[in-house]
């Protein structure tokens, strides 16, 4: 039995190997916990200073909505869309070598029967002006308990070697 209000790792940390990976999935997530936290350190082989990853829940492709605010080192902007819980940013291949993004994705009440809300805090690293900081609030209008999460590089790129993803459960009660 997990101790309340602590992070408990679910499954094991994924560390991408030398061949890269187009996506990373956590399947058969137990409904044991109250909240989920997914932590990603990512770099893509997409040829830009950043790349974007999308998070798909339970292989669902519709009924997402989200809004985000981001800074790119020069200005701030905001946008909305209905295409997955997107804008989990990775460092792209033209950014400073060996740098990675840090992304924290929080999913409260993932096993309940309400719609599923998601908050994302994501930053990239680059030894130049163009580095991104992103916060995002997302909603999946679907009541099914979350049993799988898939993170995919949305630019047809791959997560490169040493990118990592770890899933944690938090039991609040």
């Amino acid at each position, binding site marked *: 039995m997990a101790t309340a209000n602590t992070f408990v790792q679910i499954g094991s940390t994924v560390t991408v190997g030398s061949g890269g990976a*187009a996506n990373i999935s956590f399947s058969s*997530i137990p409904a044991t916990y109250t909240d989920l936290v997914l932590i990603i350190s990512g770099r893509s082989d997409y040829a830009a200073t950043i790349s974007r990853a999308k998070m798909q829940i339970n292989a669902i492709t519709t009924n997402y909505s989200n809004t985000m605010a981001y800074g790119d080192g020069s200005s701030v902007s905001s946008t909305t869309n209905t*295409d997955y819980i997107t804008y989990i940013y990775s460092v792209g291949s033209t950014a400073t070598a060996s740098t990675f993004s840090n992304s924290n994705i929080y999913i409260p009440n993932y096993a309940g029967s309400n719609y599923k809300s998601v908050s994302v805090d994501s930053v990239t690293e680059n030894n130049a002006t163009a580095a991104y900081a992103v916060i995002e609030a997302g909603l999946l209008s679907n009541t099914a308990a979350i049993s799988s999460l898939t993170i*995919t590089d949305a630019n047809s790129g791959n997560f490169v070697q040493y990118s990592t993803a770890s899933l944690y459960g938090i039991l609040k009660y």
Partner: protein
Amino acid sequence: MATKIIVDCSTGTTTEVELTAEEVAQQEVDAKAYVIEQAERDADAKAKADAKASAQAKLAALGLTADEIAALGN
């Protein structure tokens, strides 16, 4: 061939498998959509910057100083 990594949380096992043809096709669709979205965001940001510069120029033409324009906010 692109691959995906799957963690089965019920067993703790991690496997790496090749993407299906459908997944590869979806990747290509997503990539094209991203390019379009990025262009739209860039255009929106430029339009906002242009409107701001235009407004500031009009205020300056009315006789406001740079400090007075700045005091009106960003």
